[in-house]
């Protein structure tokens, strides 16, 4: 295990060294990850032929060929911010739409719940509309995480979707709790129904928090 970690660091170090001084861009960030994953797999295969860590690493790196063209490509991208924004524009548009719609869903849920509260009083009817908060919160989480900002690169869509799911589950568990409490009038049923979704949500969230990679820009 320790060996594996030092091998991983060595690969990351090699790739960082390769692209040293190249301006940051989303593509560079992704290319580095792509190269690292493939290199790691190649080293595994070479080791399976009986070579040790060091030999396998050297052979894998040597067989990569001349990467200077690729480095040059990335250098140009790092300098040219206009082209960078073309590449990310589709993702950015989806993220923007998600943030807008997510926020609107949350507001709609809040206002309609408020309206129904003044119409019918506190109860299942007014609480029911809070389901829009669950949907809005999920969408908002996903959209914020897939957005590239000044300080952070965009998260990959699957991880972001799982974050959205965990937030959705947590919100849904609270929602279910309130609704069951007022529908049945029994606190223990409410706790039971909160429990199921809450635990699932926490489980996913913890897994994600403990496995993430650093997205911050240097």
């Amino acid at each position: 295990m320790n060996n594996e970690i030092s091998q991983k660091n060595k690969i990351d170090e090699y790739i960082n060294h390769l692209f040293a001084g190249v301006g940051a861009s989303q593509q560079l960030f992704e290319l580095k990850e792509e190269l690292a994953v493939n290199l790691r797999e190649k080293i595994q295969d070479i080791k399976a032929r009986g070579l040790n860590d060091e030999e396998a690493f050297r052979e894998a790196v040597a067989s990569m060929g001349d990467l200077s063209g690729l480095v040059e490509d990335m250098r140009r991208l790092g300098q040219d911010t206009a082209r960078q924004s073309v590449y990310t524009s589709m993702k950015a548009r989806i993220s923007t739409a998600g943030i807008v719609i997510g926020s609107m869903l949350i507001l709609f849920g809040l206002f309609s719940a408020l309206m129904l509260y003044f119409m019918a009083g506190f109860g299942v009817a007014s609480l029911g509309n809070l389901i829009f908060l669950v949907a809005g919160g999920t969408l908002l989480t996903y959209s914020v995480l897939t957005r590239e900002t000044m300080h952070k690169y965009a998260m990959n869509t699957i991880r972001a979707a799982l974050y959205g799911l965990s937030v959705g589950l947590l919100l849904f568990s609270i929602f279910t709790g309130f609704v069951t409490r007022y529908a049945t009038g029994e606190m223990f049923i409410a706790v039971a129904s909160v429990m199921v979704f809450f635990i699932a949500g926490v489980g996913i969230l913890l897994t994600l928090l403990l496995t993430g990679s650093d997205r911050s820009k240097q």
Partner: protein
Amino acid sequence: MGGKISTDLIRGHTDTIILNILRQGDSYGYEIYKTVLTLSGQRYELKEATLYSAFRRLEQDELIVSYWGDETQGSRRKYYRITAKGKDHYEQNRKDWVFAREVLDKLIQGGLNSDE
């Protein structure tokens, strides 16, 4: 040469080789690298440097698209998929190759006095 094909001969066909692999299913960098080795009977190694430059070019030309695999752990693979435009492009390149091969064969090996 040691039983390996000359790089000069193959250079112009890198894109078609990659498209041929992707038209038979999505794949990622290292797997494509291995497939090229296998398909060539270990006689041609497409260097990673060439491979990743080709991916970028093909993606810019919209012949392929990329997406990240669903491995949630630290290591996720970047997969490539051929587009409809990519398939058309492959088919055209394949036809061009068959045609060129026929002509080149005549030019390189053809005798002047062969009576048809």
